[in-house]
C-alpha cells in the first residue's frame, strides 16, 4: 500500500471540507433558480415548457401586482394521481406551494385536506366576481364546491363528447347524427362504418380510464358506479351569484358504491356487446396521445374527447373538415360527464391574499385569454370559448362543447370523491374483466368492482 503521511491525510480532509463548503448551495438545492425567494409559488401539472408558456400570464399578473413575485413550478406525472402525490411529497418536505392547479380528479381530495376555502374572498370581492360568474355555467362552479364551500374557480373544462371521422361517416352512408341520437343509432353508425372499412379500422375506440372511459355510458343511462348525492349548504353562493337559478346545493358527494344497479349493468352490457361485435376496442389503459395518432390516421371512426383535442388534431395536421363533434347518444337520458380545472389555495400558504389575486387574475378575461391562446381546452367563460373555437381552428360543430352544459343541464363532473385514486383504481381494474368475459361476465365483473369500491370508499 502507498504510504501516505499524516499531513497528506489532513490535507485530503481539508480539501474534502473545502469542496463540500464550495458545493453547499448545490448539495442543498439552494442554487435552484427561485428557491428560497420570497415569491408566490404556483404548482402546475405539466412540463418545464408548460411552465415557460405561463410566463406571459405571470407578466400580465405582475403588471397589476408589481409587488408580488410569482414562481411557477412544473410538476410532471403520468396522471393526476401522480401529480397530487408529488404535491404531497412537497408538503412532507416542508416546501408546499401556495397555489396548485387541481382538476376534478383531485378537487375533493384537496378540499377535504389541503385547500383553503375561498368563500370569504368571493364574498369580499363579490361585485368584481359577478362579471365572471355571469359568463360561466353554474354546473362548472358547482363541481368545485365541497360541503357548502367553494374551493376553486374553473379556468378550463372538457366535456366528453363524441369526435367522429367525417370520411368514415360518409363512407357508411350516414348523415351527421342528430343531437338526440339514440343508442340504436350509434350502433347503426358504428356497424355501417365497420362494414365499409378495412380490417385495421375500428368504429369506436376508447381507453380504460375515469375521463371518457365507461363513465359517459353510465351518465347517458342516468346512472353511475357510485351513488351521487348533493351536500347541504351553498345557498350563500347561489343566492348571491346565480339568483335566477335554483340553488344547486353544496357540491357533490360520492360516498357509496353502486356498481350493481340495473342501469349500470345495462351500460356495461352495451359496451360488452360493442366489444364482442368488434365495433369497439377492448380498452387498453392509457392516455390520449395514442388516440390522436390513431384518429388522425383514419383508423378510428369515433372516440370520446373534448375541446382539448382540437389543438392536438390541428398539430397532427388534421384538417377541420376531416372530423366533427357531436353529443353522446341518448340512453335513459343524455347527461354528459365533464372534468374541470382551476387553481386552489393551499391551507399552509402564508400568502393567501396574494394567492387569491392570482386566482382572480387567471379567471379574468385577460388572464384566461393569455393562458389559452389556442384551442387546447374548453373555456368556462362562454364569451371566450366562442372567441377561441369560432376563430377557424376546430370542427364545424364546435358549439357542442359549451352546448353540452346548456342543453343538458344535469351534465356533471366525473365521480371523484376524496378517495378518488383508490376509486379510480377499483374502476379501471374491473372494467376489462366485466366486458370481455361474455354477457354472463358483466355481473361477475361488477360484483368484483362493487367489492373493490366499497373497500376504497371505506378508506383505511
Amino acid at each position, binding site marked *: 500500500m502507498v504510504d501516505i503521511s499524516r499531513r497528506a491525510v489532513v490535507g*485530503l480532509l481539508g480539501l474534502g471540507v473545502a469542496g463540500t463548503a464550495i458545493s453547499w448551495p448545490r448539495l442543498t438545492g439552494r442554487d435552484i433558480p427561485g428557491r428560497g425567494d420570497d415569491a408566490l409559488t404556483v404548482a402546475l401539472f405539466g412540463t418545464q415548457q408548460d411552465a415557460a408558456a405561463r410566463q406571459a400570464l405571470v407578466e400580465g399578473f405582475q403588471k397589476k401586482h408589481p409587488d408580488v413575485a410569482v414562481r411557477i413550478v412544473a410538476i410532471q406525472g403520468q396522471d393526476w394521481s401522480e401529480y397530487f*402525490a408529488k404535491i404531497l411529497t412537497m408538503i412532507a418536505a416542508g416546501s408546499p406551494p401556495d397555489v396548485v392547479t387541481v382538476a376534478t380528479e383531485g378537487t375533493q381530495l384537496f378540499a377535504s*385536506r389541503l385547500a383553503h376555502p375561498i368563500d370569504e374572498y368571493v364574498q369580499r370581492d363579490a361585485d368584481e366576481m359577478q362579471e365572471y360568474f355571469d359568463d360561466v355555467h353554474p354546473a362548472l362552479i358547482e363541481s368545485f364546491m365541497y360541503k357548502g364551500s367553494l374551493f376553486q374557480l374553473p379556468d378550463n373544462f372538457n366535456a366528453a363528447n363524441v369526435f367522429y371521422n367525417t370520411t368514415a361517416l360518409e363512407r357508411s352512408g350516414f348523415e351527421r347524427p342528430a343531437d338526440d341520437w339514440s343508442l340504436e343509432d350509434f350502433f347503426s353508425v358504428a356497424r355501417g362504418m365497420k362494414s365499409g372499412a378495412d380490417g385495421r379500422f375500428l368504429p369506436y375506440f376508447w381507453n380504460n380510464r375515469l375521463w371518457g372511459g365507461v363513465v359517459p355510458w353510465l351518465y347517458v343511462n342516468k346512472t353511475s358506479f357510485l351513488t351521487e348525492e348533493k351536500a347541504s349548504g351553498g345557498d350563500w353562493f347561489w343566492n348571491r351569484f346565480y339568483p335566477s337559478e335554483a340553488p344547486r346545493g353544496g357540491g357533490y358527494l360520492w360516498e357509496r358504491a353502486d356498481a350493481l344497479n340495473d342501469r349500470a349493468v345495462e351500460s356495461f352490457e352495451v359496451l360488452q356487446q360493442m366489444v364482442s361485435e368488434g365495433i369497439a376496442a377492448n380498452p387498453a*389503459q392509457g392516455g390520449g396521445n395514442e388516440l390522436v395518432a390513431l384518429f388522425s390516421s383514419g383508423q378510428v371512426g369515433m372516440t370520446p374527447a373534448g375541446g382539448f383535442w382540437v389543438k392536438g388534431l390541428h398539430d397532427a395536421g388534421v384538417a377541420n373538415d376531416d372530423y366533427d363533434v357531436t353529443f353522446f347518444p341518448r340512453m335513459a337520458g343524455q347527461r354528459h360527464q365533464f372534468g374541470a380545472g382551476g387553481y386552489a389555495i393551499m391551507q399552509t400558504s402564508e400568502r393567501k391574499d396574494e394567492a387569491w389575486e392570482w386566482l382572480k387574475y387567471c379567471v379574468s378575461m385577460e388572464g384566461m385569454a393569455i393562458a389559452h391562446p389556442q384551442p387546447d381546452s374548453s373555456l368556462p367563460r362562454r364569451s371566450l370559448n366562442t372567441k377561441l373555437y369560432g376563430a377557424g381552428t376546430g370542427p364545424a360543430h364546435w358549439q357542442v362543447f359549451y352546448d353540452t352544459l346548456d342543453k343538458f343541464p344535469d351534465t356533471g363532473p366525473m365521480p371523484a370523491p376524496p378517495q378518488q*385514486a*383508490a376509486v379510480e383504481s377499483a374502476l379501471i381494474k374491473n372494467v*376489462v*374483466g366485466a366486458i*370481455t368475459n361474455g354477457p354472463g361476465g358483466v355481473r361477475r365483473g361488477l360484483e368484483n368492482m362493487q367489492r373493490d369500491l366499497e373497500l376504497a370508499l371505506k378508506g383505511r
Partner: protein
Amino acid sequence: MSTTSSTQAPAASDSVARSGATRRPRLLISLFLAPTVIGLALFSFLPIVASVVLAFFRWDIITSPEFVGLDNFARLASNPTVRVSFLNTIGFVATAVVVQLAVALLLAILVQSKMPNWLRTFFRSTLFFPLILSAASVSLIMAYLFNQEFGLVNEVLGWIGIAKVGWLTTGFGAKVVVLLVYVWQNFGFTFLLFIGGIAAIPKEVYEAASIDGATGWKQFWQLTLPLISPTMLVASVMAIINALQIFDQPWVLTRGGPGDETRTAVMVIYESAFRQLDFGGASAIGVVLTLLIMLVTAIQFQLSKRFVFYG
C-alpha cells in the same frame, strides 16, 4: 511450544497494530470508505429502519402519524388484492427466473462456442443491450407492439391466419407479455455472468474429458454445469431478488390488469403509498416483501451447500 507461540503472537501483532505504520493505512481506508458508508447509512439503512417503524403507524403525510400496532399487517392479511399480488409475484419469479437463467446460459454457451471474435463481440453487445434501456420506455413501446387492435404483433400473426390475440386484455396474454418483456430486458446481466463463469473453466479440463471420451453433452452436464455452479448461485440469487421487485414492466404495460392478473407486490406498495396515501400499509407490505426476499435468499444459500461445487 504452542504455549509460547500463542502468547507471543498476539503481543507481537498488538505492538505492530499500535505502530503508526499500520494506523495510517487504516485511517486512510476509513477515510475512503466513509462516503460510501455514510451514503449507505443515510440512503439505505435509515430508510429501511424508517419503513419498519412506519409499518406500525397510520400515516398519510398530511396528518401526524398514529401508532396502530399490528393493524397494518392485519389489514394486509385480509386484503385480497395484497394476497393476489404476492401470489402473482411468486408465480412470476418462479417462471421468470427459470426462463432467464435458461436463456442466458444457452446463449452464453453459444457465444462462447467456436466463432470469430468479432461475431462474439457483436453478440455480447447486442444481447446485453436491452439491459441499458429504460424499463419504462421499453414497456411503452411493447404496449404499442402488443396492442390488440393496432399492434404489430397481431398484424404479423394475422398474415398467417391467426386471429387477434388480446395480449394485454386477457390474464394469460398479459402475463406472457410481462414475462417476455422482463426476461428480454434482464437476461443480459445473467448472460455476462455466465460468459465469465464459462471462460474461467480451464481448457485442460475439457481436453482431459475429451481424451476420456466425454461427448459435448456429457461435458456440459458433468463439467460445465458443476464448474459454473458458483456463478449459477450468484446469478440465481440476483435474478430472484430482482424479479421479486418487478414493477416497471407490469405498471406501464397493464397497470396490474386485467383485474389483478399482473399486479405485483411492489405495485401494491406504490399504489398504497402514493395513490392511496396509506404509507403505513405500504411499509407493512414492504417489510413482508423484504422478509420474503431474505427467506428465499437464505434457503438458496442453504441449498447451495449441496449443489454448488467450488472446485
